[in-house]
């Protein structure tokens, strides 16, 4: 198996366009959850979320999600310094859920629904993002779109890593994207999973999650290829684990069995022992159930207090299909900078969470090894294991 390294990063986050803005916001512990403006919120208990601010990349004729994806993928490709030939053979794996639903909803919501514009229909599927990105950057390698709910972005990265490890390609672009949609917002409202105030992962008094949007993409390469072209290497993706709970369509296995198996699989593949892992970027949604079960699973694998834990969702909300990839980028940057991003809004630590969850302020820590957890509806669990630089 070929070793896989990360040589390019790109983000479109609620802090704005670019990885620099993303990391600056996370490192400052800045909560970007505000009043929603993209969709109507009348009649709902929760009216906040984390929207991407500032100008978007790409043509205004494209869907919002396509533009988020093009911006983040383009930044990752430029960051990696890939030439035209490298790009042409590169794989593209995109994690997506909502597709162009925001624009399709605008059509479907019309009181007297007219014939849909062709562009709206063509862009509604999740796979439309991959087509848009591939067409824009001329990527002609293996291309596929994964839909694993809230773990989609992380699954995309794991899938790309397998294509490189197996020698199918030397270079891959992978990540996740989602824009805020009415259906997503209304659905989580209907499930009563949204906190009317900014979410508070791992807080004793947490009341639910906050939705968000964004895109995060990485360029992954075989280590040999990256060395040969003297590319900058952020981190090594040493291992990953993908499992399924097979328990419930929305609720995680109460024992966290699938989460534990995903984390252990990532450790096994990465040749790591639990004590090597110093930081976990948690799925950390802020719902009472998820945080409790994830903490239990983390304790089962790493021991109580065995590592630092924080949730990026406390600052950028739950960006759905983008969450896994944006949080993977946060993990890579934490390794790069030796700084653990905090959990914002954490006032009263939950006694059932036996970890230091890095409340409020980022914490300097010389990190060598870290994980990023992502879990989705349907019990779809993914853990990515990163090591600093070339391991």
């Amino acid at each position: 198996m070929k070793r896989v390294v990360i040589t390019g990063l790109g983000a479109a986050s609620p802090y704005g366009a670019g990885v620099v803005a993303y990391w600056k916001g996370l490192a400052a512990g800045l909560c970007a959850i505000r009043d929603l403006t993209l969709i109507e919120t009348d009649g709902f208990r929760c009216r906040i979320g984390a929207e991407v601010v500032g100008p978007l990349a790409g043509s205004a004729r494209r869907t919002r999600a396509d533009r988020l994806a093009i911006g983040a993928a383009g930044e990752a490709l430029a960051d990696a310094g890939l030439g035209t030939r490298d790009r042409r053979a590169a794989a593209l794996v995109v994690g997506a859920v909502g597709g162009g639903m925001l624009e399709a909803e605008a059509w479907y919501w019309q009181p007297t629904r007219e014939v849909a514009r062709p562009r709206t229909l063509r862009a509604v599927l999740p796979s439309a993002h991959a087509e848009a990105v591939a067409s824009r950057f001329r990527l002609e390698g293996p291309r596929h779109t994964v839909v694993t709910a809230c773990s989609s972005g992380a699954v995309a990265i794991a899938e790309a890593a397998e294509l490189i490890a197996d020698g199918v390609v030397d270079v891959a672009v992978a990540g996740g994207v989602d824009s805020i949609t009415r259906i997503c917002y209304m659905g989580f409202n209907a499930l009563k999973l949204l906190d009317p105030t900014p979410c508070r992962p791992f807080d004793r008094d947490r009341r639910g999650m906050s939705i968000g949007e964004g895109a995060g993409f990485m360029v992954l390469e075989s280590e040999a290829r990256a060395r040969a072209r003297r590319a900058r290497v952020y981190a090594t993706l040493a291992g990953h684990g993908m499992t399924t709970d097979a328990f419930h369509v929305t609720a995680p296995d109460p024992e966290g069995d699938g989460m534990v198996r995903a984390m252990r699989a990532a450790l096994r593949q990465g040749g790591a022992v639990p004590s090597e892992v110093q930081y976990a970027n948690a799925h950390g949604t802020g719902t009472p159930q998820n945080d409790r079960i994830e903490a239990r699973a983390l304790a089962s694998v790493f021991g109580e207090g065995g590592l630092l834990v924080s949730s990026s969702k406390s600052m950028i909300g739950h960006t759905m299909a983008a969450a896994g990839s944006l949080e993977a980028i946060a993990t890579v940057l934490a390794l790069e900078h030796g700084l653990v991003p905090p959990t914002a809004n954490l006032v009263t630590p939950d006694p059932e969470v036996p970890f230091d969850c890095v409340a409020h302020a980022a914490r300097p820590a010389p990190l060598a090894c870290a994980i990023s957890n992502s879990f989705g509806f349907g019990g779809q669990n993914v853990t990515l294991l990163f090591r600093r630089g070339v391991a």
Partner: protein
Amino acid sequence: MTRVDVAITGLGVVTRAVTGDSAALGAFLASPSGLGDGAHGAVAGGNLVDATEARRLSRVCQLTIAAARIALREARLDPGVGLGLVVGTEFGDLASTHAFADGFLARGPAGLSALLFPNTVMNTMIATTAIAVGAREMAVTLNAPTVAGELAVARAAAAVGRGRVPAMLAGGVDESDPVVERELTHLGLGTERRGEGATFVVLEPREAARARGATVLGTISGAAWRALPARPWGVGRTRRSSAIEAALRTAGARPSDVGWVYASGSRDEARDRWEAHVLREALGTKPLVSSLGQMLGRDAGLGVLRVGAAAWTARSGLLPVMNGTTRVERVRSGRGLVHGLARGGAHVALVVDAA
């Protein structure tokens, strides 16, 4: 990690035309006749979902579970060995998405159904199927127009062939949707024949299958997927297929070894013409090409059904061909190709051999 040949040891089909395992599909292909009752009727009549599932699950989830169960039953595989899932779909559970939105549009926030919301995410079929069959390894839903089913099989074959998962259920599923039909017609794609249903195959390493005494229906000896340059939703001009080249290379095969092809033709004339050019460039004019989509209609399940059909052709040397009328041609048994090409350029190739 050494790549191993991947055996097909089970097949489950739930469609309007045929419902059952590999024997049922073989009988249908040998004598393709008129269409039967609706796919949903086939699910209910065959006791393929239990009463609770029939009450609680959406129609497309029921189709998925039913096909997966038939495939597992034929394979006689214990999910406890470590079973993963890959499901391809073009539209997911669109009926539930409409119902969820319509609830709000009719009654405001009070009309929203918490039960329907999870079905608006395309992985709802895989989530319910994983629970129904006890699959606890990787589970990935792949969304793609036109080629989602064959892509799911190719992805699952890679996981098994590289030893990442002991066995995989790979399937495709879609259901008819009146809104989609109407809008596709407005897009000028109404001539394309669309279908509905679910098909699954069980994949495992050939040696492991033989060791446990399983019947090997066919072997996937090469699989690859790539993207040809094309605008989103567009038809491209490139004829050289890197996916076919890669699949043949993996199988250690030459183009002349391919005796027949199951292609993705479905009366989308521009796309069908492009695929014909791609196949001719890769394989020459020799292999006979079957396009089941022209008879059964295209959906994500059909991509998987064509893999099952390819295993049958590899064994029997028979190929159903539609050219005005439907007939069954005798071809060289053994190695053939399953090919899918989508608008936008996604394309998939699988080399299928007899057991």
